[in-house]
């Protein structure tokens, strides 16, 4: 529900051929399963700044221990650019997701160049995992082993 306006915005601004990223959060066989924090970003291979596509975290929790507190656990993203992002951010922030497969749009205004699509997950009382997908002609796929399933980028 929360993502609906964001998805709509993405679709409206995207040309017909805009790419997508599909992210699978695997089912955890754990009694006390907490939905993971998941972030997706595009990293230019030339070292220029990253572009965060989505950040799923506890957006509702505010106050002394707000939901943003544990964003630092997405340590690679945090270091590469998450720490300079003001959250919540329109089109980026979203609630955590239950296990399943989700699709987010690639930005339509992406400049030509070489990119790596990264998806990083961290779960309370759980693990941490980073899946990196080097894009070849705007597409690619890779799979995580613990906290993430398949990450598929299609043109």
């Amino acid at each position, binding site marked *: 529900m929360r993502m609906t306006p964001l998805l709509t915005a993405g679709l409206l601004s995207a040309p017909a051929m805009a790419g997508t990223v599909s992210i699978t959060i695997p089912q955890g066989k754990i009694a006390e399963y907490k939905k993971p924090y998941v972030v997706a970003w595009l990293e230019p291979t030339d070292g220029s700044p990253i572009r965060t596509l989505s950040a799923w975290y506890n957006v509702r929790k505010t106050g002394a221990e707000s939901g*943003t507190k544990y964003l*630092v656990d997405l*340590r*690679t993203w945090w*270091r590469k650019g998450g*720490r300079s992002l003001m959250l919540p951010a329109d089109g980026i922030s979203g609630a955590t997701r239950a296990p399943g497969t989700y699709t987010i749009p690639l930005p339509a205004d992406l400049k030509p160049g070489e990119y790596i699509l990264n998806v990083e997950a961290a779960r309370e009382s759980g693990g941490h995992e980073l899946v990196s997908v080097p894009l070849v002609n705007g597409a690619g796929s890779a799979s995580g082993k613990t906290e993430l399933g398949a990450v598929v980028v299609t043109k």
Partner: protein
Amino acid sequence: MRKIGLILPALIALAGPAMAERAWIHPAATIFIENEWVSVDAGTSTDPFQPDHQPTQLGAIKVWQPDGTEGKMENAITSRYRSSFDVHLVKPGTWRIGTADSRIMGSFKVDGVEWRLGGRRGPQPGMAMAGGAGGAAAAPAQPPADAPKFVSSVDEIPANATDLQITESLSRDETFVTAGEPSRAIFEPTGKGLEMVPVTHPAELLTNEPSKFKFLVDGKPAAGLKVTIVPDGRRYRDSENALELTTGADGVLTVKWPGAGMYWLNTTLSDNHPITPRATQRRMSYTATLEVMQP
């Protein structure tokens, strides 16, 4: 007997770096989002971060905000083996938490009689005979005539003093905590004594790439400086696994970290360039606690 008792404390104080007593400032973590709190312990022990010897006095510790102004310690307590406090990271950027201590101590002679400056005093009057002949402690509180004479500051050294052996002792001990985006304002060196300016930002120390730190003495590169780095968790290893490294001609130290975790870095340097007038030598110590992350 008496003479040994008096000289020994002075020797212990002067032998600082050679002793296995290490001061440490130990933050629970160093990378936070803005407005988060960091919990910090400070103490002295043989194994860094193991609170089993002495607490650091809270009055010696300072917090610097990213803009260089003084920050606040909160919920501070001193317990048997450590002091603990929180810092509320109310401003974005890199904070510094640590101690900067400077002392003067040594000896000189006036008309052939030895005097001492600073450092630890001899036994207090009245305590002088304690442990000696039974009942002597009840004697009038007068130090014996041959007890050494003390002055507490350099200004009190008489003009006709000879045989000056005055050591200026400077020590820094610090750690860096970053809230949100890192900043570098607090790395600005003072140009006095032994300092470290991170080349690799302390919020970006990684196991898969070497980190660089520039060491300065009086603002100039400290070339060939020997630096010791001890990983946390000594208790759970057979050996200390310390890294013994040396700075290059440019004063830069390059560190390849053996793993993620907290590290205690220390280096000492002695020279004959004290800042204090009439001091004859200088002993400097620099200590930092650094957190290394997986990439």
